[in-house]
Every structure is written in structure tokens, then in C-alpha cells.
């Protein structure tokens, strides 16, 4: 697909401070500044809470941006890893009291599950479309199963899964070494923001590494990559595993934000939203999904406050229009516009 041009060219220019490197660097610095300053300036806790949620969504969107946009694996079940992360965090934190171990478990379990599912799918050489359907089916299995766990026989340690009522009153993450210190919403905002930056930088570096370039090669032409000696099955499995870990982290942060998880995290509608974020933001970029998640998270909430039109109706229209009219997404449009403007300025063109 034509959407994916541009990533590889960036990968070739590591080492020098080329535009390809300054862009992401400037972005990281700017976002870091915003995240650092915002809690000091904004006194309205509600806005901070809202932004915390959007940043967790942003991490989730980046996980799909990585798996789908960069790895070329269309996963319909990113919500499955997200939900699994949230549930793992819930079970471990209830059993151990709030602790950082729960955070690591909440990343590790979805990652392992993604590797397992990836092994199952890619070593079975299941084609792209069927991968989409299997991932969709898997998140549906989770949804049905966890909705079914209201009985008290579904208890892990001291944690009761609770069926559709979900698991309330989860203990929050705490400071390692100082478990009594309270985590305020401002702290949660900072933690989520730092995670967001780390994920962005981590995925960016991964794309620039030799592993990342092999992943791009597998995406562009699987047979050619295989003939060059790469085990494409292994690369796809690893790509999927990384995506699972990132989605799991997003799930942990969400569970912390909400101090509650329920089977709705596995809902098909939610899986679809993640895809919408990526499509609207721009497939094949890393910032795109982030931007898409922020914009649409905001739009969804704003739309939810009015009663005249159903939210689904508007989301549906947005999605159809974007696929038909703007298949490259918002970021590519902005980038093209910027490139055109720069060319117009005398002296700077042709650099």
C-alpha cells in the first residue's frame, strides 16, 4: 500500500541530525515540556484526569500503529491485550496490595499471550485477513468468558473476577520503597505521560534498529525477506509480542485511572475505536495514532454530552469518509501541507 512510504527513508539517516531525526526529537521535547508543565498550570483536576485517559488511549493506539502500520499485521484484537493487561493488573494488585509488581505483570502477561497467539497464527501461516478474524474472535472469547465469571468459583487468590460487574476498587500503583505515599491525580498524569514518552521513544528506536528494518522488510515483501534468510514467522511473532506488551501497559494505566476493570474493555466497539484512531491519525506513522486517539477521544466525549445524535452514527460517518477520502490520515495531510509550504519559501526549497 502506498500509505507506508516515508518510514524507511527515516531509518537510513540515524547518526546525523537530519530532519528525520529532528522531527521526532523536537516532538519528544515539546511533549515532555507540556506534560511537565501542565499539572502546575491546570488547577482543574477533571481536565488532568481526562488527559490521563487520553494518554493511555494514545499508548494503546501506538501499539496498533506499530503492529499494523509498521508491522503490516492487521490486529482486530488489540483490545484483548489491553483488557488482559488491565485484568492482570487488577488480579495481581488485589492479591499483593498496590505494588509495582502488578505493573510488570500487567505488561508481561499480555506480551506472553501475544507471543503465544502469534506463534499459533504465524507459524501456522494464516493469511492476513484470517489473522484479523482470529484476533477478533479471541477478544470476543475474553469478553464472553469474563462476562460469565460472576460466580464465586471464579476467584484468583483473593481477587474475584466479578462477571459483568467487573472488579472495583483496585489499589493504585505506589512508589517503590515508599508504599505509603499517596498517588494523586497529578502523579498519575505524570506517570502516564512518562510512559507515553517512553513508549514513543522505545518504538521509534526499535524502528530504527536492524530488527525494525527487518520487520519493515517482512511487511513490504514477505517472500523476498524470507529468501534473504530472515525467518519471517519469528519476526512477525516478535512484532506482535511487542504490540501486546505496549497494549498491556495501556491497559494497566487505564485500570489505574479508573481503579476498575470490566469486560467492556474487550468489547468489539472498543476494538473498532482503536482502529478508527489509527486510520484517522494516519496509518504507517507513530504520531498519527497518538493524535487520532487524542482528537477522537475528545470528540467522543463532547458528542456524548449532547442528546440529539447518537455517537456511533457520527463515528461511523467519520470512518467511512476517512477511508474513502483521506486514506493516509490526518498526519500525512499535515505533513504534505507543511512540505508544500516549505517549498514555496525561497531559499529553503530543495534542501
Amino acid at each position, binding site marked *: *500500500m502506498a500509505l507506508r512510504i516515508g518510514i524507511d527513508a527515516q531509518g537510513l539517516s540515524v547518526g546525523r541530525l537530519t530532519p528525520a531525526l529532528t522531527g521526532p526529537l523536537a516532538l519528544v521535547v515539546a511533549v515532555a515540556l507540556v506534560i511537565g508543565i501542565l499539572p502546575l498550570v491546570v488547577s482543574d483536576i477533571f481536565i488532568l484526569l481526562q488527559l490521563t485517559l487520553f494518554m493511555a488511549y494514545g499508548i494503546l493506539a501506538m501499539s496498533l500503529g506499530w503492529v499494523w502500520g509498521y508491522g503490516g499485521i*492487521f490486529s482486530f484484537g488489540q483490545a484483548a491485550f489491553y483488557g488482559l493487561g488491565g485484568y492482570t493488573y487488577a488480579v495481581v494488585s488485589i492479591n499483593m496490595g498496590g505494588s509495582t509488581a502488578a505493573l510488570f505483570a500487567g505488561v508481561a502477561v499480555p506480551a506472553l499471550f501475544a507471543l503465544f497467539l502469534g506463534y*499459533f*497464527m504465524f507459524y*501456522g*501461516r*494464516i*493469511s*492476513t*485477513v*484470517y489473522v*484479523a*478474524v*482470529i484476533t*477478533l*474472535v*479471541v477478544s*470476543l*472469547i475474553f469478553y*464472553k*468468558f469474563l*462476562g*460469565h465469571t460472576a460466580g464465586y468459583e471464579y476467584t484468583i487468590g483473593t481477587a474475584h473476577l466479578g462477571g459483568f460487574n467487573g472488579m472495583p476498587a483496585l489499589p493504585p500503583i505506589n512508589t517503590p520503597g515508599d508504599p505509603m505515599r499517596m498517588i494523586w491525580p497529578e502523579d498519575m498524569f505524570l506517570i502516564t505521560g512518562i510512559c507515553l514518552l517512553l513508549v514513543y521513544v522505545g518504538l521509534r528506536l526499535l524502528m530504527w534498529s536492524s530488527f525494525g528494518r527487518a520487520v519493515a522488510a517482512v511487511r513490504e515483501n514477505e517472500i523476498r525477506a524470507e529468501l534473504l534468510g530472515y525467518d519471517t514467522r519469528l519476526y512477525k511473532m516478535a512484532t506482535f509480542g511487542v504490540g501486546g506488551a505496549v497494549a498491556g501497559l495501556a491497559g494497566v494505566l487505564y485500570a489505574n485511572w479508573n481503579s476498575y476493570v470490566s469486560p467492556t474493555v474487550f468489547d*468489539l*466497539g472498543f476494538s*473498532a475505536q482503536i*482502529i*478508527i484512531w489509527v*486510520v484517522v491519525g494516519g496509518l504507517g506513522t507513530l504520531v498519527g495514532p497518538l493524535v487520532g486517539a487524542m482528537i477522537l477521544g475528545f470528540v467522543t466525549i463532547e458528542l456524548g454530552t449532547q442528546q440529539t*445524535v*447518537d*455517537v*456511533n*452514527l*457520527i*463515528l*461511523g*460517518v*467519520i*470512518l*467511512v469518509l*476517512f*477511508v*474513502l477520502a483521506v*486514506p493516509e490520515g490526518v498526519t500525512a495531510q499535515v505533513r504534505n501541507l507543511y512540505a508544500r509550504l516549505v517549498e514555496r519559501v525561497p531559499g529553503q526549497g530543495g534542501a
Partner: protein
Amino acid sequence: MDLAGIIAVQIGYTVASLALISAGLAVIFGMMRVINLAHGEFLMLGAYAVVVSTKAGINFWVSMLVIAPLFVGIVGVIVERFIVRFLYGRMMDTLIATWGLSLLFIGIITTIFGNATESVVSPLGSFEIGEFAESQYRLFIIFIGVLVIGVIFAVLRYSRAGLIARGTMQNADMAAALGISPQRVYTITFGVGAALTGLAGAALAPVTGLLPTMGAAFIAKAFITVIGGGEAIVTGTSTASALFGTVNQVTTFLSTPVMGDVALLIAAVILLRLLPQGITGRFFRRWL
């Protein structure tokens, strides 16, 4: 003995309803390779068409067998004309666009009818096998499931329209060279698939609660049935329905309906791992 009889009826019912909800998708996905994620919403529209027309005083059978398929078929033609047509060959884009469409339909129906359960009363009574009572409507579903599969087979195999459709799917350029408009064939095929889906939704309306979001309950089942069936749409869909329906109903009988659904989904994942091309990718290869 009575118990065996009643279980047989229930298994037959589950198999038939799986085949019914998958038949339209088998035509659209199996023949045209278009992933229609609005399939569940086509079912939902069929069901709502029955509600509206029976409330308007039209006979239940007429609304189910005529009005619902006609209405959803027209919706299908419109969708093909204005959205799907531009996306042939772009499988992933079709998938996303039709997902958007499904949200759109849910939104429209929610706006009109509200997020409340509607219902249609089944017009048939019940019958008894020994000491067990069972609804006659289940027998009707079995009947109509067999009928739909049979008609699809007969049309594709013996009629000129079926021959043209199969030929166009196999080689659109050659069909065009022989004076057939592939565009028209695609539109009609999509419309027929939608109409079959509408009929399925209408037939299942009395046995399910009607909600704007009811489509989600069917979409995954329909897809794994069609994909599990593989290339040959009639044989594939019927064998996959038989397999998954039996797994579902037996597990339901041994445990709970939810576990039955979970077992069905797990069976599908395992089947696809063992037979990535579906059942007819390995067996019955030359069948239709």
C-alpha cells in the same frame, strides 16, 4: 429417547441458524472477497423491518419472507453503489469502511427506536416429544435454513444467472469480453447477499431480543463459519455450520450457553490453525 429427540432438534436448530446467518455472508465474502463487517447490522435491519411492518398491521409471514429481504437487499445495493464499489481489491479498506457503516446503522437505528429491546411474537405454538415441549418455530428455522442453502446451490449450479455470477467472480475481464457487465453482476450479487441476510435477521427476530447492537452477537459467528468453510461456499458453509453448531449445542447442553459460544469460538480458532484454507480447502475440493 425423548431426551435424544429434543437434543437432536436443538442441534438441528443451532446448525440451521448458523447456516442462515452465514448464508448472505458466504455470498458476499465467499464470492466477492468483500469483507462486510456491516453484516451483523444487515441482520439487525432485517429484524427491525419485521417489527415495523408487523406493527403496521402487515401479516407476519409476508413481512418476514418478502418485506425484510427486499428492504435489506435495497440497502445492500445502495451500499455497494456508494461505498463498496470504490474499494474493490482493497480488502483492508473495505473492512474498515464497512465497520464504519455498521456503526452508522447502529447509530441511525438507535436514534429512531432508542436503545430499548423490541420484540416480535412467534406465531407458532409448541409441540411435544414425550414429556418435553419444544417450540414449533425452531422446526421452521431448520426448514428455512435447509431451504436457503438449497436455493443458493440450485441457483449457482443450474441457473444462467448463477453461471454468470460464478464466471464473473472467476475472471471478470473474460466475462466483460463476453458482453457481461461485471459492475452489474457485483451490484446484484451484493444485493442478493444482503437480501439473504435480511431474511435471516427476520427469521431469527422472534427468537432473539431486538436491540440496535444485536448485530455484534452474530458477526463473529457468521465470519468464522464462512471462513471455516473455505472456498466452496455452499458445501463449506453447510459443513462448517454443522460442525460448529454441534460443538456449540453439545457444550451448551453440558454446561451453559455462554460456554457453548466460547467452545464454538475456540473450535474455530483450532480449525483454522489445522486447516488454514478452511474445510473445503482440504476436503470436498471440487464441490460448489
